[in-house]
Structures are given as C-alpha cells and as structure tokens.
C-alpha cells in the first residue's frame, strides 16, 4: 500500500521512548496560573504584594472563591482514601457533575506499589467504557504541586457505606439482586476486555444518583495479553477477606477470571447476610480458613440463592461457576419481590438528597450579598493564616465576602485555605447540622443566605467530645 502524501516529507519513525516523551509533553497541565514565586510561600509571613498584570487580576478575580482546576469548579469533599481526597466538581463546559480524585505524589510514594497502581488504573480505565464500570473522563497533572487529578463519573456513595449505615449490615434481597446483576454486567465487560479486577468487594462498588452501580478501583487489576490462550495469572493483591483459596494457598498461578467470580461470591454473601463466609483473627488465620474452603450459609438464605453462593464459592476454581453459569442461574433471573424497604445511600453531611455541593460556591460568586461591605482589597498571607487558625466563625463569614477584584484568592498554598481546612472534618458539619431540625436539609440550605451557608463549611476542624 502506498500513501499519496509520501513525497511531501518523511518523518523519521519514533522509537518507543520518543513517542512517549512526546506524549508527556502534551499532557495537559491545568491549574491556577501561579507565578513560580508563590509556590513555596506557605510558611513565610512576608506580606504579599506582587506586581501583577492587569489581565491577570481579572483572571484571578473571576474565580475568586470558586476554585477551579482546569475547567472544573471545585465543590466539597466526598471522601478520603489512602491516596488522597475525592471532591465533587462541576464541569464548567458541560455542566456535568463529576468527582475528582486528587492524588498527591508524596502520599503515593509511601504506599507500596502506589504510583504503579495509579498508573495502571489510568491506563486501564482510559480504554474502558461501560455503564457499570466507573468512567475516567479526564486526567490533569500539576507537576509543580506534584498533584494529579483524575476526573471521574460522579457517584454518591459505595455499597460499603450503605451497608455500614444499616443495623444488620445487609441489603434486602431485591436490592442486593439489583446490584449483583449490575456487578455481573460490569464484570462480563471487564472480562471481555481481558481485564481481571482482582479486588471486587462492596467498598469498590459505587452508585450514581440514579442507582447505577459502577465497579471502581482498578488499582490492582491485571490486563491479560491480547493473544493469551487462557486467563492464567501470577499475582494477587486484593483485599484478604475476598481472596479465593488458590491465592490464600499461595499457588504460583491461577485462573484470573475465577478470582473475580469468587470475590463476587463473597460480596454477594456479604451484602445478603451481613456476614463474611470466612473470617480470622489475623490474615494467616483468615487465609487458613479460606484455604480449607469450609463455610456455612445462614439458614435464612434459601435456594436458589444458596445454590448460587455455593457455585460461586467453589473451592476448586475449575468447578467454580463461570459468568455464563451465573447469568443462567435461576436466582439471577428472578427479581425478588420488593418486600423490605430500600437501604438508601447515607446522606453526605446531613444532605440526604445529595445536592450538588458546587452550587453554593457558584451562588456565592454570582450573588454575593454585598461585596463592598467589608474587607480590605488586599490582605496578607499573615492575615489569611490568622483567619484560618482563628476560632471565631464570624471571621470566616467575612472571609467569604472578599472584594471582587481581590487577587490573592488563587495563590498556591492549599493547606492554608480556610475552605480546605473545613473539608477535613465532616464531623463538624454534622454536629452543627444536628443542632437544628433535620427535617428538610435541602430546603433549609436554599433558604439560607448563601454567605452563611458557605461559612458552615468554613468552620475550623474541631473534634466532637
């Protein structure tokens, strides 16, 4: 075959590395436009007056409170993992609610295989697209801050949090069935893409506002070679209680797809009974018990579910059910009647409706009550720090009425941001909320003045007694 454009110019072929470098250079770096001199000023108390171009003042003022990362408007904290925080954001171009996982390289380095796992997750998620697998929509890197932002589909919570919010730590059968069917759909897709998740458990199954289950956290997942004859794997890194006997036994190699079947079986067992099939005081005991493969299913679990659980928790991986067998199993087909009440996603800081947390920031920005009432036009880092450490909530109210053309709000010391201080302690808000009637938090929120609403989130961290 020939190319008509062959004569124009012939570019030398890149070697692997060259192309990769090229790619790296092209990676998008979005964040606030900060002069380099502001980066490490966290601990200095030098008053900060910088010469700034007029166009930059406008730029800064435009986003004074709504912190933006790239095109995303930041909202409240949704959760915190070992890798970093997860916050809600709003895509300012599409107006879609998203979640952003903020990874700090410094933190990652302390976790075994941390950076490697994140890199793997990004590579895998980028090529996946399925209703029941969490979508990775964007990756932003800020090399200076050593932060990475993974923009994902927005989820309101995970099955684990929901389970923990109930007294019996389980779902009604019909609800569990709905999640299980979605889990199998997502898993079938992953397996069709040659991906073994290896860490299926309630904590890694998230839900969107409309109740769609999303398999997440592919940090320890493995992609099989495209031409691999079978699904043999050699390493397992998942959560111990969900590991199959072949891994507990330390087998050198095992069938990958069957690992996911087993852990899905443990998950199904867990969400329907509130128990775990295998337990142990420590990981050795636990693995010992798993390796034996002996477990009991509580009496209240009847066939066909009982039979399905036995099929999925087969000690012998070869005899263990395949996805196909599960999909054809009577329990899979049968929708159990909706007898018991649905377990809801636990409220986020008292908000059962999971209203968009970005909104107050936008409201504050656009409808701030009286921008001229308070505050100097410029203030120093020292003052800022003083506010951040201050105990008087009223001061925080002031903080949120910064003048329109304040240029300091974007400077780069995230730790010192009063708003970020507030994030770390959801407890604070709950205490605050619980003092009031909790009947209709969403209405109350919208009635409240935007400024005071914001200030709720600005309270310095304080522990409940």
């Amino acid at each position: 075959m020939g190319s008509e454009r062959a004569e124009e110019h012939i570019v030398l072929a890149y070697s692997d590395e060259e192309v990769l470098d090229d790619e790296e250079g092209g990676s998008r770096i979005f964040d606030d436009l900060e002069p380099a001199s502001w980066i490490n000023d966290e601990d200095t108390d030098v008053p900060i007056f910088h010469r700034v171009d007029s166009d930059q003042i406008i730029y800064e003022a435009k986003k004074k409170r709504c912190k933006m990362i790239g095109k995303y408007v930041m909202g409240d904290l949704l959760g915190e993992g070992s890798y970093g925080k997860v916050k809600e954001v709003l895509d300012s171009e599409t107006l879609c609610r998203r979640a952003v996982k903020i990874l700090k390289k410094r933190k990652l380095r302390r976790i075994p295989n941390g950076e490697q796992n994140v890199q793997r997750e990004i590579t895998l998620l980028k090529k996946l697209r399925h209703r029941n697998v969490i979508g990775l929509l964007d990756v932003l890197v800020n090399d200076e801050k050593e932060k990475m932002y993974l923009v994902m589909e927005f989820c309101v919570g995970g099955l684990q949090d929901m389970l923990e919010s109930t007294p019996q730590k389980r779902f009604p059968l019909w609800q569990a069935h709905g999640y299980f069917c979605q889990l199998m759909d997502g898993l079938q897709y992953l397996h069709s893409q040659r991906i073994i998740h290896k860490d299926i458990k309630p904590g890694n199954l998230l839900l969107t506002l409309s109740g769609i289950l999303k398999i997440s956290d592919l940090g320890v997942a493995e992609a099989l070679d495209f031409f691999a004859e079978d699904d043999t794997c050699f390493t397992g890194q998942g959560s111990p209680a969900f590991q199959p006997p072949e891994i507990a036994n330390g087998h050198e190699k095992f069938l990958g797809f069957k690992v996911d079947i087993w852990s899905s079986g443990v998950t199904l067992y867990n969400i329907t009974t509130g128990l775990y099939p295998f337990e142990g005081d420590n990981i050795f005991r636990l693995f010992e018990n798993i390796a034996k493969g002996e477990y009991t299913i509580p009496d209240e679990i009847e066939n066909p579910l009982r039979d399905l659980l036995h099929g999925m928790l087969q000690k012998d991986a070869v005899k263990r059910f395949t996805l196909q067998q599960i999909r054809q199993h009577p329990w899979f087909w049968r929708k159990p009647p909706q007898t018991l009440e649905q377990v809801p996603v636990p409220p986020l800081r008292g908000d059962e409706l999971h209203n968009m947390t970005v909104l107050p920031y936008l409201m504050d920005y656009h409808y701030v009550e009286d921008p001229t009432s308070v505050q100097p036009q410029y203030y120093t880092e020292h003052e800022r720090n003083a506010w951040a450490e201050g105990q008087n909530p009223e001061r925080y109210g002031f903080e949120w009425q910064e003048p329109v053309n304040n240029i300091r709000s974007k400077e780069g010391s995230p730790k010192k941001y009063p708003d970020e201080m507030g994030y770390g302690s959801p407890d604070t808000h709950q205490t605050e909320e619980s003092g009031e009637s909790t009947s209709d938090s969403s209405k109350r929120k919208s009635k409240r003045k935007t400024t005071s609403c914001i200030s709720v989130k600005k309270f310095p961290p304080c522990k409940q007694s």
Partner: protein
Amino acid sequence: MPLFGKSQKSPAEVVKALKEAVSALERGDKKAEKAQEDVSKNLVLMKNMLYGTSDAEPQTDIMVAQLAQELYNSNLLLLLIQNLNRIDFEGKKDVAQVFNNILRRQIGTRSPTVEYICTKPDILFTLMRGYEQQEIALNCGTMLRECARYEALAKIMLYSDDFFNFFRYVEVSTFDIASDAFSTFKELLTRHKMLCAEFLELNYDKVFSHYQRLLNSENYVTRRQSLKLLGELLLDRHNFTVMTRYISNPDNLKLMMNMLKEKSRNIQFEAFHVFKVFVANPNKPKPILEILLRNQDKLVEFLTRFHTDRSEDEQFNDEKAYLIKQIKELKPLPDH
C-alpha cells in the same frame, strides 16, 4: 355495573374484542373504520390494565395473569404484529408497549411469555421482517430489542435465515430505520457473549462474507458503523477463536489496509484498531507476513504520519509506536 363511567371489561373480553376488531381490519371490508376504532380502544384498555393510568393503578397480578393467558391462547400477539401496518399510529405504539410489558412478565424464575414465544417463533420472524415496512419498522425494532434481551429468543433470531436480512436492513435508504436495524443487529451479535461467540464460530463463512459487503458499502454510515462493530467483536475476548480466524485471512488484512487509507479519518481510525491485531499477532501466517513485509517501509512511513494530531490520546500513540516497531522488526520466515 357502575352507573357512571365505563364498565370494567374482563381481560378475556378485551382480548376477544381486540381479536375480532383486528380480524375485521385484516379483512378490510366496509366496516374497517369501525374496526380501526375498536382496535385503538381495546389496545388502550389493555395497556391501561398493564401500566395503569394517572387515576388508576395497574391491574392486580391475577388480572394480568389472566390477560397474559388469554393472549397466549388466542395467539393475538402474532395477529397484532402481522396487522401492525393496518393499525393507526397511536395503536402501533400501544401494541409495542403491551408486547414489551407482557414479555417482561415473570412467575418466579420463569418468563412465561418468553417460553410462549419460543413455541411461536413466527412472532420473531414477523417482527424481523417488520424492517421491510417503513411505517412499522421502528415499532418492530423496539419489540425486537426487548426480545433480544432473552438469550432463548436471541438464539432463535440469530440462527434463523431471517437474521441475514439484517445485512440488508442496515443499509436501507431511510436513515432512522437503518440505524434502528443496526442497533438491533448489534444487540443480537453482542448481548449474550457465549451465544454470539458460538454463532459466529459456527457460521463464520456466511457471516463474514455478508459482513464484507457492509465494509465495502457505498454508504459511509454503514461502512463506519460496521467497521466499528467489527473492531468490537474481534477485540472481545469471548470471540477469541473468531478473531484468530479473521486475522489469518490475507484478504481481511488487505481490506483493513485499504480502509486505513480511506478519506474519512474516522474510518481510518477504526480500521487502525482492527489492523493492529493483524500486526500484533505473534503467530502470523505466511501470507499475512508476506503482505506486511512487502509493504514494510511504506507501512512504517505511513503509520509514522498517521493521525499525528492525536497527541492527547496516549493509548493510541503507544499502540502506534508499538506497531511501527513491530513492522520494522519483521523478518521473513526462513525458507524451507
């Protein structure tokens, strides 16, 4: 009987009335207008039994069970579908709604309507042929896709001769019908992984000779969609056997290489994702290797300049770099 408002008809009565009305419509005699009215009226009654209305809840399970039983016994579903083109616009939609609701009905782990349709596959074949009639094609499409969710029904459709008509339907000139047919076609080929893989393996020659025509279609949309679906099918691990067979055929490689050079960048891009499998194959058959070797330099040069503006797409660039490396390193097989 209530003094005001309409009396409640029993399911048996509704089914009987509807059947008579549809038959009258089919005969097309002078009472046709009245029949049309009766059909619409009874369809609405039936729909309301299943879905309820703004003032009324859906009927009790017993009533719905009776209705379903009457529908099976009277063979009304088939009759409705056969005469769908004669029913008015709203009526067509009501038929589809009634059909889909009855289809989803479950008793314990059984789906009685699915079992019923298995014994009356004409329902499926009639629905599939619905794509030949413009005025009912989309209604049939919604019913077909609902059927395709059930493996047993999907299997009947896949293994029927009518299935191969889809290769024609996806190319019809009416765009919305062609797209609807394509989504049903895709659903049938991808929904039930094991079933589809087996079907493709067993009918490899027939399916792929038909498929070749889609890839060579005059119609840009057909070409692009079918190429994309081909990529999805081949890259799905369930279709491993089919994939290895596909990438062993030099004609398929030639086709993909030509598609890499198509005017449309989208087609080029989709073709790339199929082409890469040929190159990545660790056990390339001799004819494949020969074609690649014959074009070694040209391919390297071509790929190097292929979609260079996709700098954001890391995965694509990695794959491209990998292919270039692979092609550069190709060595002829030692002569025997």
